[in-house]
């Protein structure tokens, strides 16, 4: 036992110094790591101290915006104050978040032409059957849960982000079970589903802004239905974006192990 770290779980891509030839190089590397560790720990302690100081500095009781939100709940169109803030009072924040998510998925799609880092992995037949059974049971429940969260967002905790995350989890499960060939999605469908939420949101926002002459101020009578429309489309798009992040081809770091995988990928498999 020369080292106490477990040899099995050591990632293959652990960086080694270029001049590591023999024990001296290793020791040098260890010394380097030791210094980094000390520096890191110092930094953490510093930040922790700052955090404590900030928390202690907070006023014991902050007024918050409770009263203001409560006073305007009747024009928001929904019953849950959180949804009212997210999609009505500060709707532009949410709009920008959707754009950020879309940008992330575009970044992932740019890498689509890179070779896939690992082949479709299949455990043996029994595993496949059990996984298939699990997918059959879980996917409907996941879709139901996503719908429920979307519906609940109107009057209780829940909403588009949570529903989108559950939809994405269903997609993950399908990809993991080789039930969804993500990269065979038609291009137009992919683009449409990724941007659908943003398109609907921007359309609603611009129409509403033109009508009421105020940025993202919904007409009182239509606020509820508009928010529902936005939530449904945004939830779908968030799900698609997250699935893209997972199933879109990941970038590959050039390690020997990864190179080996690339070559094994080139061979046609029967």
């Amino acid at each position, binding site marked *: 036992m020369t080292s106490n770290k*477990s040899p*099995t*779980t*050591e990632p293959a891509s652990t960086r080694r110094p270029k001049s590591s030839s023999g024990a001296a190089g290793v020791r040098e590397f260890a010394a380097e790591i030791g210094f980094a560790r000390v520096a890191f720990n110092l930094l953490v302690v510093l930040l922790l101290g700052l955090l404590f100081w900030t928390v202690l500095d907070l006023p014991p009781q902050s007024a918050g915006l409770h009263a203001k939100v409560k006073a305007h709940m009747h024009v928001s169109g929904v019953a849950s104050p959180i949804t009212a803030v997210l999609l009505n009072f500060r709707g532009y924040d949410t709009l920008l978040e959707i754009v950020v998510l879309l940008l992330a998925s575009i970044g992932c799609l740019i890498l689509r032409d890179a070779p896939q880092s690992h082949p479709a992995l299949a455990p043996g037949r029994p595993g496949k059957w059990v996984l298939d059974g699990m997918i059959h049971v879980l996917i409907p429940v996941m879709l139901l849960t996503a719908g429920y969260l979307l519906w609940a967002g109107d009057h209780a905790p829940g909403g588009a982000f949570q529903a989108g995350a*559950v939809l994405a989890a269903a997609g993950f499960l399908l990809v993991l079970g080789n039930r969804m060939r993500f990269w065979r999605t038609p291009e137009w469908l992919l683009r449409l589903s990724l941007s659908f939420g943003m398109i609907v949101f921007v359309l609603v926002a611009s129409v509403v802004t033109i009508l009421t002459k105020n940025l993202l101020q919904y007409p009182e009578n239509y606020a509820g239905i508009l928010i529902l429309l936005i939530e449904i489309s945004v939830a779908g798009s968030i799900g698609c974006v997250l699935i893209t992040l*997972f199933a879109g081809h*990941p970038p590959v770091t050039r390690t020997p192990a990864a190179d080996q995988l690339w070559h094994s990928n080139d061979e046609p498999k029967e």
Partner: protein
Amino acid sequence: MTALTWIFDGLLTAAMVYLAWSLLSERDLFKAVVLFIAFGLLMALAWVRLRAPDIALAEAAISAGLSGVLLLDAVGAIRSPNPVPEDTSSDSG
């Protein structure tokens, strides 16, 4: 605030600080990912204790469903293809 809530919150906070520390200073990527999954669970509990069920819902969906999958996939992509983990356990007797 009874003594019990203090105990619960104290345990939760201590565990989260310890977990955060150990997962950040962990060199074994897989172990760090598993610790991160555990951290996500405790984070959701912390949001619950702060009476923010909205964020707890989002945290549950993200930490249990999404980030673990994404991180494991990433770690799997940058490591050697076919590892057979040796059993290094010596506590089997």
